């Protein structure tokens, strides 16, 4: 088992999927000869050839549409969009076609495509290149949304996404790409979709989030542990369809919940989780639900970026606020 970064783990999963299934194609801007802007598709062209690894022209709408067409014919296209800010141009195809093909054809056609894109801030890049735009896609029935929080989870979840018979938006936190290494066994084992992962158990407060901010949640849990508070860390992993049961079960024990995401607060996906807690979870709550998120602003340049990102300190403070109740 070799150590890998997230970007290497993605590359491994892509190669594995292409190896095991000839229907898997990789396409996008600079994914072939250049191996992708982040090198997530490095080596694929040499190994699988230009018939299966396509450098496309600069045209995001067409990249998404082409993938829908391929998928409708049984291929398993994995398209890369260079940064999430350019994925907004794919929303028309993803919403009106990819997500609805199964319904519209009453199950006669399906759309087993994956749209991969780096997401999130913390890489000193400005807007377009630091977007946490998941909520623009979470309100689209028929589209699955998956976000890994580590190299190992990236490998297993991407394999699952490619094998899944429906369209998946796969969001790769840019700031995790090279932030850490961990052992990744390239044995083709997928991780389950549609399930939260409990990364740390604890009975006092639940910290719920996804993607890069999971690292801050784990650090916050460590800090809280030093204060004698046992925090449970829940990596949501698949936003849609949401595994609300796992979150409700955890809050059933803790009675307290801090939801964390980098995206802006208003109508961020945390609001859906809060609504679940205010509905079926209401009687378990011992304290108001806390949300630690980006502010309702456009991601600025790095000198202000750190003020926008949810920090360990903000998560710890929210947990403490929550614990003061009851």
């Amino acid at each position, binding site marked *: 088992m070799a150590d890998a970064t997230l970007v290497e783990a993605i590359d491994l999963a892509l190669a594995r999927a292409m190896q095991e299934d000839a229907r898997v194609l990789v396409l996008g*801007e*600079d994914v072939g*000869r*250049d191996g992708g*802007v982040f090198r997530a598709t490095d080596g694929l062209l040499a190994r699988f050839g230009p018939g299966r690894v396509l*450098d496309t*022209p*600069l*045209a995001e*709408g*067409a990249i998404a549409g082409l993938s829908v067409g391929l998928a409708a014919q049984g291929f398993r296209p994995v398209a890369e969009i260079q940064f999430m*800010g*350019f994925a907004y*141009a794919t929303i028309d195809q993803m919403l009106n076609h990819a997500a609805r093909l199964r319904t519209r054809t009453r199950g006669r056609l399906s759309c087993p495509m994956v749209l991969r894109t780096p997401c999130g801030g913390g890489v*000193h*890049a*400005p*807007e*377009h*290149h630091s977007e946490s735009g998941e909520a623009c896609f979470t309100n689209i029935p028929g589209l699955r949304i998956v976000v890994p929080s580590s190299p190992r989870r990236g490998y297993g979840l991407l394999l699952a996404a490619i094998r899944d018979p429906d369209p998946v938006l796969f969001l790769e936190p840019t700031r995790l790409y090279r932030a850490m290494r961990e052992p990744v066994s390239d044995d083709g084992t997928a991780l389950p979709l549609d399930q939260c992962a409990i990364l740390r158990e604890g009975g006092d407060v639940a910290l719920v989030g996804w993607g890069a901010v999971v690292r801050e949640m784990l650090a916050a849990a460590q800090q809280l542990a030093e204060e004698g508070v046992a925090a449970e860390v829940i990596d949501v992993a698949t936003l849609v369809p949401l595994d609300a049961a796992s979150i409700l079960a955890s809050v059933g024990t803790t009675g307290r919940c801090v939801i964390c995401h980098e995206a802006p607060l208003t109508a961020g996906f945390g609001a859906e989780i809060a609504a679940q807690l205010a509905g079926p979870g209401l009687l378990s709550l011992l304290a108001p639900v806390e949300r630690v998120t980006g*502010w*309702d*602003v*456009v991601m*600025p*340049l*790095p*000198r*202000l970026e750190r*003020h*926008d990102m949810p920090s360990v300190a903000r998560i710890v403070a929210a947990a403490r606020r929550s614990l003061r109740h009851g």
Partner: protein
Amino acid sequence: MAQAADTKKRGKPRANASAGANSGLTRDEWLKAYRDMLLIRRFEEKAGQLYGMGLIGGFCHLYIGQEAVVVGMQMALGEGDEVITSYRDHGHMLATGMEARGVMAELTGRAGGYSHGKGGSMHMFSKEKNFFGGHGIVGAQVSLGAGLAFSNWYRGNDRVCVTYFGDGAANQGQVFESFNLANLMKLPAIFVIENNKYGMGTSVDRATASRDLSRNGAPWGMPGVAVDGMDVEAVHEAARAAVAHCRAGKGPYLLEIKTYRYRGHSMSDPGKYRTREEIQKMRSEHDCIEGARHRLEALGVSEAELKKIDDEVKAIVQEAADFAQSSPEPDPSELWTDILVEG
């Protein structure tokens, strides 16, 4: 809409904007072109240095090699004409007369930058200079440019809008949508494809089936010409013809300006897609600034006169770099400004 067109008369072409039979640059124009290109070159070299020192966050796409494009174009424009471009925009801003210090301070993310240190390299604007950005979404500025041209048409003034975009951007759908619209409405729009042969790591022949980008507007009847973008005089001549065409109310015009960027796409470009020799050949045989220098020498401009320009440019760039390092960081409260008008 047809009615609006009838009631709005196009202004008369300006005297200085008509394409004369002999539209070569005068001695003074050569001096100005040289100075403006040199300013961009030295500015970009300095920006590259500051980036290397870790003073610039975000992205930084240098314009080195392409200076003749924007300088030749700008010299054919007049008061009130609009300019809009992509993220490779430092040269365009300097050419429109925006201050080097404000641009450099934006690169370093300081309060004194054109976007108060919140926008960075790709996102700066100047209403005074009619510079409408600096845009990071590749190709999107082309339809914005058509909209700016529409405003001129609607108001019946004689302004033109120049929209710059790259050979990679030229493949975006909305570029063709905008071409159609601009031709349908006969908008005073000059579309400039800065063909520097590569869109990031993909060469133009691997990215488009069009073998002649200057003909990309042909299906809509848009005139287009290919221009040597390493020769500021050639660019200027083509620009004058395009401007005259637009000001006369004849509709949009496409220029494919063939140019070359010497540096990487952005600062972290491994550059595997082209050879060192290719870059070296362009630099040594086609450099626009070297070309201008030779021309000035042939016109009898003295070494001392050229040295004076070099010194002036150097001083501007140094002052800009100093300002970009001494201007304060933006206050954290700036995070919440300019989202919506305060109610």
